[in-house]
């Protein structure tokens, strides 16, 4: 049966919130995943697809696709590289560092003097420590950072790692996966 008149596909807010939870946890791996979600939410497949499209358009998503775990793929070294940059050059240099595919995060954060002088944080995954070190050297050369103070903080033990608890409404959703993902 075809609908005779156009249907308002604007998703209601409660659908959006539920969709955010579901796509954070992952799609069901079935032939028609959006239809499966629709059934769960008691709405149409089109409403689900449009709802996800809207979430993507809002800019809240970094990406929507296959989320890989670097460690399981042999990327065992993780270095957080912290840089002490002149404040007026953070944006320019941040964009330079952030353009490389082996850099998985690149953020400006505040200095906390005197204990903490670094204002730019970048994350590099590599198969081993020397691969990470080589990539840091590459960045230094490419972005003209000779003489800029920086340190590489390699990760060691992981004491706790989990995503946000999506079922607990008090805690916000979707977070950075700063270490292994």
């Amino acid at each position, binding site marked *: 049966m075809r609908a005779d008149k156009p249907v308002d596909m604007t998703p209601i807010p409660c659908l959006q919130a539920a969709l955010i939870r579901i796509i954070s946890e992952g799609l069901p791996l079935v032939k028609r995943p959006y239809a499966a979600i629709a059934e769960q939410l008691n709405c149409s497949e089109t409403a689900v697809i449009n709802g996800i499209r809207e979430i993507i358009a809002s800019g809240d998503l970094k990406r929507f*696709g296959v989320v890989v775990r670097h460690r399981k793929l042999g990327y065992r070294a993780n270095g957080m590289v912290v840089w002490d940059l002149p404040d007026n050059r953070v944006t320019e240099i941040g964009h330079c560092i952030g353009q490389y595919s082996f850099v*998985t995060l690149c953020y400006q954060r505040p200095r906390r003097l005197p204990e903490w002088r670094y204002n730019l944080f970048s994350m590099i995954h590599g198969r081993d420590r020397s691969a990470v070190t080589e990539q840091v050297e590459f960045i230094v050369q490419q972005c003209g950072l000779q003489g800029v103070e920086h340190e590489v903080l390699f990760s060691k033990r992981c004491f706790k790692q989990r995503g946000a608890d999506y079922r607990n409404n008090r805690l916000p959703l979707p977070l950075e996966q700063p270490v292994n993902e």
Partner: protein
Amino acid sequence: MREFSQLEQRLLNEFQHGLPLTPEPFADIADQLGVYETTVLETLQRLQTEGVVSRVGAVFRPNRIGASTLAAIAVPETELQHVADIVSSFAEVNHNYEREHRFNLWFVAVAEDEQRLQCVLREIEASCGYKVLDLPLLNEYFIDLGFDLKWI
């Protein structure tokens, strides 16, 4: 680490973003790769079971919903496990790990708003007896198109 097939490599590398928003997204991926839809689904299911793929879904930006921060504590080596356990016991802490540095304990804390986040950080300081560096995100400088896996 096991060897990955050509199909697995392409699924892992080429579909980290832009999953088709069509009724049958895995059929579209299968068309692009020249394989059957069931092969794509079975392969993704296997990779997910193995833990190589955490999910097929969304990665959100931080700080879009609620408040979060990256925090660090400098802890004497002998006390690290003890302090780490205290930090991990907070529900608001979702990543907590050791790094090689004088500041050797790093964690991500999230809360429903900034005020609650600051409360949590003060509670952590009070519980463990060490000062917490609060390093919230100010600006983000990269376009995340996923991670380019190099197959060796």
